[in-house]
């Protein structure tokens, strides 16, 4: 379940350089300079049609190559061909990638290939006539859910192995978008499962950015759903005879999702920030995250008591773009929430300023305070 290179510049004993201990694979470093060129050249000769390799040899060679250098795109592409011809089980590539990532947690080509494989797998899901080896045989929804969970694990491991691992977190977002379909359940699950992780990695901007992505997706969801609710209401008003059986189903689903209680989530997030800022002075990421969370809570229509249909429409557009514009900021003038009041934040900042001794912390606090004051003044 893990690979690594054992620093061992000379072959002192006449024995294999492969060491397997408790399911962890080690390769003594002296052999790499022989092994890598050997498999590399062999694969290239095959590609140039100068030397034939059968399917099993190809699988072995690419496997070895990729564990030594997972950014060798050609090797992944050979495996793509094998998968498409039905000779190679795509799940094997997920496993191979996972193994490679234990040593090369950033490897861009590994993540890219992983997304290709996942795309193949979900296509198969929608075409049950295709026979795949190693099909788990479970219901498609269950299967996808398991895939998602596994990807979350892989991302988490890789994120822990390299600070601010952009590729790992990007992949995580991609999986939620394309496999998880950004359902409320998935978003909430991820929010709770990453809470501990980010608290242990307070400078990991990517981790906190992920939480912003989750929160914004939740906001977007709630807006869309309340839009549907409002539209349903308007339809029902116009056609009272239209029995609500159809819309009731949709409404019930929406209401279930409405029970997300966004203000509470945002408040929790702000509390998390405050706690971490207090405990670990001087981390810009935390202040950044705090800024943006407060911004979300102040401007989200889901947290305002009365969302007018027009506001919601305008917001729907911009939140689905997931971009933040000055214009949007001015448009969304929701009533201030007492519990999330900027006044409370200012009290917090003043407390930080009076008690902290870290120069960076002071600087962030002052900047944040300035921003808040301007913000309140609007």
């Amino acid at each position, binding site marked *: 379940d893990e690979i690594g290179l054992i620093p061992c510049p000379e072959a002192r004993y006449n024995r294999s350089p492969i060491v397997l201990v408790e399911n962890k694979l080690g390769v003594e470093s002296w052999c790499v300079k022989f092994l890598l060129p050997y498999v590399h050249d062999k694969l290239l000769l095959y590609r140039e049609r100068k030397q034939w390799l059968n399917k099993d040899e190809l699988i072995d060679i690419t496997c070895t190559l990729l564990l030594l250098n997972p950014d060798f*795109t050609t090797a992944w*592409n050979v495996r*793509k061909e094998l998968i498409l011809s039905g000779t190679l089980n795509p799940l094997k590539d997920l496993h191979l990638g996972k193994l490679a990532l234990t040593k090369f947690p950033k490897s*861009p080509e590994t993540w*890219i290939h992983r*997304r*290709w494989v996942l795309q193949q797998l979900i296509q198969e899901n929608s075409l049950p006539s295709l026979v795949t080896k190693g099909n788990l045989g479970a219901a498609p929804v269950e299967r996808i859910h398991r895939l998602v969970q596994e990807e979350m694990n892989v991302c988490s491991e890789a994120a822990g192995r390299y*600070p*601010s691992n*952009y590729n790992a*977190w*990007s992949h995580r*977002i*991609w999986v939620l*978008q394309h496999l998880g379909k950004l359902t409320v359940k998935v978003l909430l699950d991820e929010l709770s499962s990453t809470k501990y992780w980010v608290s242990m990695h307070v*400078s*990991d*901007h*990517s981790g906190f*950015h992920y939480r*912003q*992505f989750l929160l*914004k997706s939740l906001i977007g969801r709630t807006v869309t759903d309340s839009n549907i609710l409002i539209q349903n209401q308007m339809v029902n008003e116009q056609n009272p005879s239209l029995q609500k059986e159809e819309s009731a189903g949709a409404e019930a689903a929406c209401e279930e999702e409405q029970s997300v209680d966004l203000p509470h989530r945002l408040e929790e997030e702000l509390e998390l920030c405050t706690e971490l800022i207090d405990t670990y002075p001087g*981390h*810009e*990421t935390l202040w*950044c995250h705090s800024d*943006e969370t407060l*911004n979300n809570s102040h401007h989200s229509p889901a947290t305002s008591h009365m969302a007018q249909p027009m506001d919601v429409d305008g917001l729907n557009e911009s939140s689905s*773009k*997931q*971009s*933040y*514009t*000055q214009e949007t900021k001015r448009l969304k003038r929701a009533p201030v929430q007492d519990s999330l009041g900027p006044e409370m934040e200012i009290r917090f900042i003043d407390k930080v300023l009076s008690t902290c001794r870290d120069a960076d912390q002071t600087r962030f606090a002052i900047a944040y305070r300035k921003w808040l004051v301007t913000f309140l003044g609007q």
Partner: protein
Amino acid sequence: MHVGGEVDVRSAYCAASVASLTNVLTPALFAGTAEWIARCQNWEGGIGGVPGMEAHGGYTFCGVAALVILKKEHLLNLRSLLHWVTGRQMRFEGGFQGRCNKLVDGCYSFWQAGLLPLLHRALHARGDTALSMSRWMFDQSALQEYILLCCQCPAGGLLDKPGKSRDFYHTCYCLSGLAIAQHFGSGDLHHEVVLGVPENRLQATHPVYNITPDKVVRAVMHFLQQPVPGLEPAG
């Protein structure tokens, strides 16, 4: 980026750069591209690899430069972008970081600092009267100090930060960043700030294509004189 490969903002820049220099840029070729790039700008103000991703110096440069080529930079929130990129210059080191809370890296001397000329031009086109007529909106001297003092390999070549080894990529982008930091504007408005001895002076680089401006002109002129290629493959 290549057939069956990843999709991100870099490819938009590569395509726009090549197409504009070779005179094959058509609205059809880039239909929807500008809008897609704009969606890559996030709450931080910078631009990520694809919509939804964390803001990142490399992707931000590619996105903005591509939009400049497509003449659609105003689809972005230029203020939040300016706020983000200026926040990326490190107050102690003088160099730039690629993302919030990360370490300085010599290559961002170009990816990040290179954004300021682009922004300057875009804001100027919008009629902004507060813009300087002699400096970019970052500390040019501090960046030059970082590059010259911390990013040089004694055996030649440049690097990410002290302790790292040299490579062509860092050599290219440290030098490109140095050129950006030394030269403001062009023509009548050109203003130089060269730190250290006069021999440190580099030629100015074009902030969109990162080759010297005369090469840009020559390329454009050359391809303008060629017949525009048809869609059918040759031969």
